[in-house]
């Protein structure tokens, strides 16, 4: 390990100084020395790369930053999100710029929320051999295989529930020996759930009716024409629901 001095910009809660421990990482096989507390993403940038493909939200929401890596003395190929995974001494890594997957094109209005739909839209789903590779690959720690099994049973709502936090990085699909596109099945099932498996709101129907019949026009006109002083008073006097 080496030590180095860091200077950061002043102001905004940032201070100068600070000694950081450094570690060796191998970005696409080439050695770089980076701060030990860096995420994979920051390490790549520290090395001088401008990331183009491989960063989106930078905070674990979007799935743009899927990464493969190996660690010294470990035979396994690991998967992770570059923006939330820390580097380790000796890590060998590469980002996945793009995962070629076919999203099916469909008309949600013509589908029904059942196994038949999964069979029609993503038939490959039924090749699942329940090996669990997808669950192991998931950087969110989701039990991906469980939702694929639920999809095969036609339990659409359960798929939506388990896949709720999926970031669609595609690492599961990339590792799946049966070539299933797990994250797309998840998105399809979420949409089917939202569209078909929930009770509609009567309250919302009423509100939409009121708006259509222009019930609020007069009130809007009055508020919009109101003197700022009067409006201010109205605002500070309004009652607040507990």
């Amino acid at each position, binding site marked *: 390990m080496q030590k180095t001095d860091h200077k950061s910009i002043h102001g905004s*809660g940032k201070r100068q100084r600070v000694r950081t421990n450094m570690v060796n990482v191998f970005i696409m096989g080439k050695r770089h020395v980076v701060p030990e507390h860096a995420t994979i993403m920051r390490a790549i940038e520290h090395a001088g790369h401008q990331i183009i493909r491989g960063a989106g939200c930078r*905070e674990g929401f979007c799935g743009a930053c899927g990464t493969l890596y190996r660690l010294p003395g470990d035979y396994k190929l690991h998967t992770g999100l570059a923006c939330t995974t820390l580097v380790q001494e000796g890590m060998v890594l590469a980002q996945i710029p793009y995962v070629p997957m076919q*999203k099916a094109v469909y008309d*949600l209005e013509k589908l029904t929320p059942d196994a038949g739909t999964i069979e029609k839209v993503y038939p490959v789903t039924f090749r699942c051999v329940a090996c669990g590779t997808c669950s192991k690959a998931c950087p969110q720690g989701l039990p991906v295989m469980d939702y694929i099994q639920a999809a095969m049973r036609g339990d659409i709502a359960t798929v939506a529930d388990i896949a*709720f936090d999926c*970031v669609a990085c595609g690492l599961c699909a990339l590792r799946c020996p049966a070539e299933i596109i797990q994250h797309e099945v998840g998105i399809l099932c979420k949409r089917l759930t939202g569209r078909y498996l929930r009770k509609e709101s009567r309250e919302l129907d009423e509100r939409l009716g009121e*708006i259509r019949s222009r019930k609020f026009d007069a*009130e809007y006109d009055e*508020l919009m024409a109101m003197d700022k002083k009067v409006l201010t008073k109205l605002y500070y006097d309004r009652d607040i629901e507990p």
Partner: protein
Amino acid sequence: MYPEYLTESLNAVERTRPARLEKALSGQPVFPPMNEKERRDVLTKYHPDFAAGSKRPIRIGPNRGEELTTEVAEMLEAHSMIEPKLMDIHLREPDYETDLLIIGGGGAGCWAAIQAARNGVKSMVATKLRMGDANTMMSEGGMQAAVSRSDSPTRHYLDAMGGGHFENVPELVRVLTEDGPDVVRDLENLGVVWDKMDNGDMQVLHGGGTSRKRMVSCRDLIGATIMRTLMDEVKNHPDMINTREFEPAVELILDDKGQCAGAVLYSLDTEQFLTVKAKSVIITTGGYGRLHIRGFATTNHYGATGDGLVMAYRAGAKLAFMDSVQYHPTGAVFPEQIAGFLVTEKIRGAGGQPLNKDGELFVFPREPRDIESAAIIRECSPDRDMGIDTFAGRMGVWLDSPIIDLIHGAGYTRHQFPGICRQFDRFGIDIAKQPMLIYPSLHYQNGGIAINERCETSIPGLYVAGEASGGVHGRNRLMGNSVLDYNVFGRRAGQYASEYSKSVTLGKINVNHVTAHAEELVREGIDTDLVSPLILPSYTPEDVKIQQMARLGNIPARHSMLRSRFSPGERKTHL
């Protein structure tokens, strides 16, 4: 896990907790809220918007003479990426032609494309990174919409106007609030899984500044849920919507009648400039957090560099409210890897308390966003020096979250804040047991390109929607109103722009305004080495950057990597 040197301060937090809890349970304010004078004082002394040098007059363009946020003014007074003379052939023979060009594939952009398709108009969405790599993907808390019986759209109107200090454009706030309920239904029909009650009615909660519960949600992932639904729908219409990823726009194209007629795109993969001729254009490029105004960390996505402002301004569109910046009081500062990560306001709503290094409260936890931020900055400033040093080059204060379970019962935090728990769990911090370290984070672009309720700008054929636009929120946006904003105005922009496309006829297209901009820079004696739009921020260490900029003949720019690979000798150009 927190490093050892913080143990003493962490112990202080534990030590003061029983007394603070007692006070919290007593129903009394845990700390005296500020009066008007104290508020004014802390704001003017410590809020970044009031700091010396935070604003300056812009010397060129439609807002000339007006005070703007300094970083914004700098970016507007920068050079274009293109040499207009070299664009001639590509203007004569455009690379693409489309009825409607949508710049930016976030929430507003996807809505615009979907709505245009419903209206029978084909469109092209050009976006910087992948579709959905956008601020829209990241929102956690929720969206305001007046859906319940005890609420009404006009009440929502009053709340929004008050939040914006009555400076918002009334016509915009009206459509924002009146379209809200329909947006909820439209999204549900597209398959968004809303949080609902057993009877099917929407679950609603309070947000900062709401007088009725009207925050609708999708657990703590409303952004990802809506974004993925909209993207999926866009991709279900390949015949109507053509998407181009990694091809950000860098300049608009006008015609000889002064109508907006397309844009110049810059392929990040091949570094080509491509021309798009379009009957109308919608800018949905989102916000500017990645400008790191005043050096602040940000909650925003990688591509949030305010490009739309630059393009529209050069083409002659007017900006509104570009002198105010929203800082979220509670951005994470530790661990360093998630610096800037948003810790939702709901934490303080549930009883979380900001504390200094001695574990003492120094501000009422639920002051308005700007006041709360200023008070935290004051605590960390040399004037008080009561902040906590992260030794990764940042300062912060504690946000005591363990007190939440003590107030509401064990398990409450994990149940209500799964997203935030997961984020901190990754680093061995259980926020139900240990506090978080926070500092204000650059969050939202309050102003933007001025629009009317049809999303029209001062340039015919140019429409704007979402965070890139200005007027809806005045100088202060309330929580939940920006998710509503991109849904309402994205949909409207798609409708009105596609209608316009059906009847407009274009003249000869050009980028003369870019030439005029260059001339204006010279005329005003502006000497700058900045090139804008910025496209992506550079996080390359300075020493590496200097080596990258050693290339002969390169214009040194902030986004050096993007420009430094051009070598005039190898390519045939007119240079």
